[in-house]
Each structure stands twice: as C-alpha cells, then as structure tokens.
C-alpha cells in the first residue's frame, strides 16, 4: 500500500513537469552545456564539487579524488512551455554516460558519451500569406522542421602535479546528423517540401585546473577551444510536391508525389567549415562550510565564432553567439561512514543566471534564470549512487518578446567498483 501511494505521488509530480524548446531552433541547436544541468549527479555545477566531496563528474581535474571506478548513466526529461501563444514541447533522452577510472589518487582517465546539441524543432509561420494567382486567392503558410542533433564523445584525464594543483584535459569529438524539412503549404493544395541532410564533425578541447588554496577553499578553471571547428556536409534534396501528404518523397499509388523522383538530378554534397567554433572559460570558487557542505560560485563565458552561411536553413534564422553564466551553488554531501538513511542523502541547490546574445548583436538578448534542487542517495559500501535533479527556470527572448518556462528532470545512476585490481583467488 505504501508502495502504491509512493507511485501515485511520483506520477502526480511527474505529470506537472515541464523544459526546452525554442533554443533548439537557433544555430546548431540547443547546446546541452549551455542549459540546465549536465547530469543528475552534477546539479547545476560544472566545475565545483557536486557528485561527491571533491568530485565533479564534468571536471576531470577532480576525478582522481574518486575512490572507485564509476560508471554513471544519466537520463534527462525536458519540457518547455512557451507563452503567447502557448506551445508545449517535451523530449527525453540519455543525457550522459561516463566511465571514470581513478588511478592511485594521482591521475585519472575517463570516457563519456553525451548529447552535445539538440536540434529537434518544429516551427510554423505565425501568419499566412495571401497570394493572388490568375484571379484565384491562395493562402500559404511555411513550416520548418528539424530533427537530429550532435553527439559528443569525450576522452579525458587528470594528473596531480603537487598537493595544491591538479590539471585535467578533455577532448570532445563531435559527430552527428540532422535533417531539415522546409515546406510551404498552399491552401487548397498539397505542401511543397525541401529537405536537406547535414552531417557534422568537429573536435573541441578543454583544459581544467584544480587549485587547492587551503583545506577550505578551492579554485577551478576550465578553458575550451575548438581544435577543429564544427564542419558540416550538407546535401540539399530537390523540392517536391507532397501530393500524398505523408512528408516523404515517394511514388506509391494512388497519389504520386510530384515530380517523379526518377526525373530529378540530385545535387551533390556541399561542405562548410566553421559552422560552430566555440570557445569558453569557466571559473569556480568553492568554500567548504564543514566536512559535508560546500558553497560555490561559478561563472563562465561562452562564445561561438561561427561563420554565417546561407546554405543551411536555421529554423529561427539566428545563432547564439555568446552566453555568460553565473551560478550560486550549495551542496551537502552524504556521509560515507554513517548508517543513517538521512546521512546517505546528498542535497544540491543552485541558482543560475544567464545572458545569451544572438547574432553577435548586444541588443538581441536571451535572458535565463533558474533554480535547481537535487537529491542523491548513496547505497552499498562502495558508494553507488542514485541522483535526481530538478531544474526550473524562465527564459526571456527579448528579440521576439516571448517568455518560455522550462523544466528539466535528470535521473542518474552511478555504479562504483574496483576495476583493474588483481584479486587473489580464494
């Protein structure tokens, strides 16, 4: 009965969860690291300790503080509610898989697979165009749909230089693809659709520094550069009249799309460089309030030195050129030694403020504020952990005078074990 009550409560909580949406329509889509939490075990933190004392999953320079090898999987639910007019969008996907191996508390090595950007969006023109063709009145509306995104495979590690300084690095291999479908719906008639496909590749590199000022205070720095800015191979498909209105270019009875696919010559692939060339730095200061509680402040600046092009259709026709972030975080970690259930719980709270700029135009702003709360439950002696994080916020798109309320739920499970240790046979 207790279990059933818990289930009902959780369902009620989940069904009011909302996050994400219009950001997917800018540039290469919504860059995960620029929104919400990276994973359930991070909360809002990027550099400062969040997973456990002295460790952040997203900061390699802290990995050597792990006691065991960890495999961490995080799943994210995002929903965004746009106002005036009201649009609700929700997606869910794996948000991070990390495998981190500390080596004798002196160094570490880690692999990670995570979405880099989400490009899923469906944009409908906000007004129809009236067109008089030889005395007939035609109404047309436009629509741009984009699906797909970019995934990053990360390879990183750290090395303790001395008792105060640890450095880390992370190589970020970007790959993925997306499809854009641009259509014009003519009433009364079938839509005319142009599709295109993009394949992405790129390589980013991020350096980390962990500086221990004293026992209570730490300072973290990260700096990201594009070793190979994102390249895209774009293939535009020919325009077609989707007579059977199934959104695919096919030629099946009884309604044939026009013109016959075999009558067309398909254009080749175009390659574009520097469609996304990010660089960023982040600074974090962490103050230990006691053995289990830390207070931290993070700030970061991200900029994208992309080259604008007219080949790839960007659904909202703008790209985020810079983002400045400020975060205030409080984390109370679990007690490794305590047997109390309460002491096994990690609590995370955070506040975040962001200002994004579109098209390198300082007047073209996106402002975001959000709060986050999370819980982690440590179980078994070696420190397996289940984390839950909830982030709620508001984005104000000044360029289009619209507000978006978003919510994000992250669930993570992290399994610890001793790997690569020779055990004596019993």
């Amino acid at each position: 009965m207790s279990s059933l009550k818990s289930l009902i409560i959780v369902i009620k909580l989940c069904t009011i969860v909302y996050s994400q949406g219009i950001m997917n329509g800018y540039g290469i889509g919504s860059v995960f690291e620029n929104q919400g939490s990276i994973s359930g075990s991070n909360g809002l933190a990027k550099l400062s300790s969040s997973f456990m004392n002295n460790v952040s999953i997203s900061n390699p320079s802290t990995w050597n503080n792990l006691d065991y090898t960890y495999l961490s999987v995080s799943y994210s639910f995002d929903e965004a509610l746009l106002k005036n007019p009201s649009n609700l969008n929700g997606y869910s996907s794996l948000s991070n898989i990390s495998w981190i191996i500390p080596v004798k508390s002196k160094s570490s090595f880690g692999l990670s697979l995570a979405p880099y950007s989400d490009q899923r969006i469906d944009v409908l023109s906000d007004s129809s165009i009236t067109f008089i063709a030889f005395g007939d009145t035609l109404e047309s509306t436009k629509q741009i749909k984009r699906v797909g995104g970019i995934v990053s495979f990360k390879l990183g590690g750290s090395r303790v230089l001395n008792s105060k300084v640890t450095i880390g690095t992370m190589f970020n291999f970007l790959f993925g693809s997306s499809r854009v479908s641009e259509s014009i719906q003519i009433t009364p008639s079938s839509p005319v659709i142009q599709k295109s496909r993009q394949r992405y590749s790129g390589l980013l590199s991020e350096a980390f520094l962990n500086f221990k000022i004293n026992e209570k205070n730490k300072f973290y720095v990260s700096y990201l550069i594009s070793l190979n800015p994102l390249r895209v191979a774009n293939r535009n498909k020919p325009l077609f009249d989707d007579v059977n209105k199934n959104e695919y270019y096919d030629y099946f009875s009884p309604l044939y799309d026009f013109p016959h696919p075999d009558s067309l010559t398909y254009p080749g692939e175009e390659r574009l460089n520097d469609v996304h060339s990010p660089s960023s730095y982040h600074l974090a200061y962490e103050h230990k309030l006691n053995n289990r509680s830390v207070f931290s402040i993070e700030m970061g600046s991200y900029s994208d030195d992309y080259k604008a092009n007219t080949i790839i259709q960007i659904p909202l026709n703008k790209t985020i050129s810079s983002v400045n972030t400020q975060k205030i975080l409080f984390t109370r970690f679990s007690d490794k030694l305590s047997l109390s259930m309460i002491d096994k719980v990690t609590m995370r709270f955070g506040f975040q403020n962001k200002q994004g700029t579109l098209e390198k135009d300082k007047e073209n702003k996106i402002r975001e504020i959000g709060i986050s709360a999370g819980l982690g439950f440590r179980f078994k002696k070696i420190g397996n952990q289940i984390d839950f994080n909830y982030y709620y916020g508001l984005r104000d798109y000044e360029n289009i005078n619209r507000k978006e309320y978003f919510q994000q739920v992250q669930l993570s499970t992290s399994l610890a074990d001793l790997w690569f240790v020779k055990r004596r046979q019993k």
Partner: protein
Amino acid sequence: MKTLRNNWLFSSFFSLFISLSCSNDPINSDLDHSSLSLDTLSINGLSFQNYLVYPNNGSNDMLYLGKKNNIESTAIFIAMETPSPVNYWAILKDTNVIVDSIRLEISSEDSTLSAESVPNLYFSPDSQFSENTSTYYDFQNLSFSNWRNLGTPVIKMDLNDSSNFISTKLVWSIDTLKEVLYDTLDTNLVRTFSLKYSSDDSNFIELFSEEAGYQTTDPKVLIFYRFETSSEDTTVYDTTFRTIYSASDLSILKPDQNTVPSDKIGISNGLGLRAKMFATIPLDSFSVGSIIKSADLIIPIDSAISDINFKIIIDPIESDIQYVDSSVIYFEDPYDTYGGPYRISNFTTNENYIISIKNYIQNVLLQNVKTLGIKIVADANNDPFETSWFDLTGSNNKPTIKIVYVKP
C-alpha cells in the same frame, strides 16, 4: 523491507518514463527567412500551325459511311476472325451437318434506318486492310468490280420485353458465300466484307464497330445448321447456330484540303486535321529547383463553328522537324512525340480548351524533355465528323499558359 524499497524505486523510475511522454507542438514564429515562395508566370504569344494526316479511325467505337459536315467516309471494311480453338467456318464443309443459312449482322443505334438509307455489302476473299494503319490513301482507286455484291440488308429492330428499342440490326444473307468462306485451297483467305453506298448520294449511317462493346454489338456472321441424331427407332434433327465475330473493322475517311480554311486552326479526326503549338518557355524566369504547382494551357474555342465536349489530346514533340507543309497530306504524322506520361487529354467547353501541362513544364525545367512544341490531335473516339476550331483572334482572350510555381 528491502523488497518494498526495490518496488518503490522501480515504480518511481517506471512512472517517470511513462508520464513524461514527449510532446511536439509547432512553435509559431516569423519565417520570412524561408525562401520558399509562390510566383506566377504567364506565357503568351503561342503559335499554331495546322497540318493534315490521312485519317485512320480504326480504334473508334463506331463505323461510319457516307457524308456529313463536308467530311466523307467512302467505305467500311470488316474482316472476320478465324475462331480458335474450334474453327466454326469448318461447319460450312462438314458433311455431318446441314447448313440452313449464313447471315452477316451489323448493329446500329439508329432506330430510323430505312431500306433507302442502307448500303450494299461486298465480299472479297483476298482484299486486305490494316485496322491501325490503312487510310484513304491506300484505297483511293478502290473498285468493287472484283468483289461480290451481296446487296442491301434486311432491317430488323431489336426490342426488349417491354417493346423498347435496343438496336437496329442490318442483316445480309450471305448463303452464296458458303463455298468461299471456308476454302481449304485458299492459303491466304481473309474474308473481308465492305459496305458502300451504290451511288454518291447524301446518305449517312453510323454502325457499331467491334470496339464498341464485348461481342453483343460486334459485326458478326451467324451460321445456322442442323445435325442428325439417330437411335434405334427414331431420327432427331437438332437446329443450332454458331457466331463468328469480326476481327477488325475500319471506316475509310477521305481528307479534303478544300474544307480546311487557311486562316483557322482546328482539330478533326475526319479531316485528318491536326495542329502543332509552339510556346517559348522562358527558362531563365524560373529559379533552379522550382516546382510547378499548376500550369494550365488555355486555348479559346470558336464556339460558333465548333462542336463542344470535343476531346483533344496534347503530346509534346520529341522529333526535331523544322518545317511542316500545311498544303501536304502526310501518310503518317511527321512529328514523333513523347507519349505517356506527357500525352494527356481533356474536353473542350463552350469557351475554352483548358488542360494541365504541369508535368510537361516541370520536365522542361528539369531538361528531361525538349521544347519543340506540342502536337494537338483529336481523340480517336470523337465523332470524326466533328471539328473543334480555336479562336486565336480575340483581343482579350488569347491562348496562354498560366503557371503557378514554388521557387526555392
């Protein structure tokens, strides 16, 4: 306790997965940056040229004989089939049966036929024609002197049980052909019948051809015969018949250049009158990759002298012929065309002939077809004695192609 906790954890994760279902509302936004847009193009200055081709009317549902609207059908040819696998013609030489009579029967939907308006029937075992290719040119000097004249038919009205008219049947007795209709010595026996009026008067008759329906109204030969079945003390004669249908039939239409005004453009099967239309399609006006939403060819019809509901076929020209002489009657059409899927047809109205040439224009843009013009012909099932004339003189209503397209 542990089981309860595990259940709780499982339930929590499961309920999250099922309750946080994805939703995908389109976001409304300004999409002016989308380059897809509608545009129109009107092509005027279409040029037309008439030319004549000896008409072949073999696929028409009807057979015609006589003169109407200054168009003349000089003869009708009907060739009978050799039935397979049982050759019923062999009954004529079968010694086990007694052939009572042989009849040729042709149907008409005209209930007013009289003995004065029916043609003579002729027979030749050797004269050949091709339903698909023979024309007046092949039979200009046709003489029936070597044909057997079988005279005029008996006219029978076919009525249903309520005494309503179904059809008129022209029935000829062809008993005298018994020996020649199944001549085993003739290796090239074709059994061709012909209908012709005895004099060039103003008679005109329409008969059903073999294309009109499945056997019921086909021209046919009926062989009525008896055969004897005997038992120990009785002999019984059974009477029956066999039907042999026509294999091909054709009206011979005579083209006449004198009936075609030089200042008009028209289309007629009976006259062999066809037209070529040429339009300069300004390819540069279209953006690369444009999609044609509609492209209507509109040709005004001179309703005062045209028959309406006239079915006209257009077919883009593939062969690169520079010049066609309007004063010549061609044995076959000088223009090779693309055919399907570009060959399309539509009916005329009182005012216009409007047909969608969207597929043609699109493929011109895609450079899959040449812009050598469009051949315009009458559909084979039009009454060959009807003509549709284009009105090219109207100042406000010129032939035009109206195109609506989407440019990328």
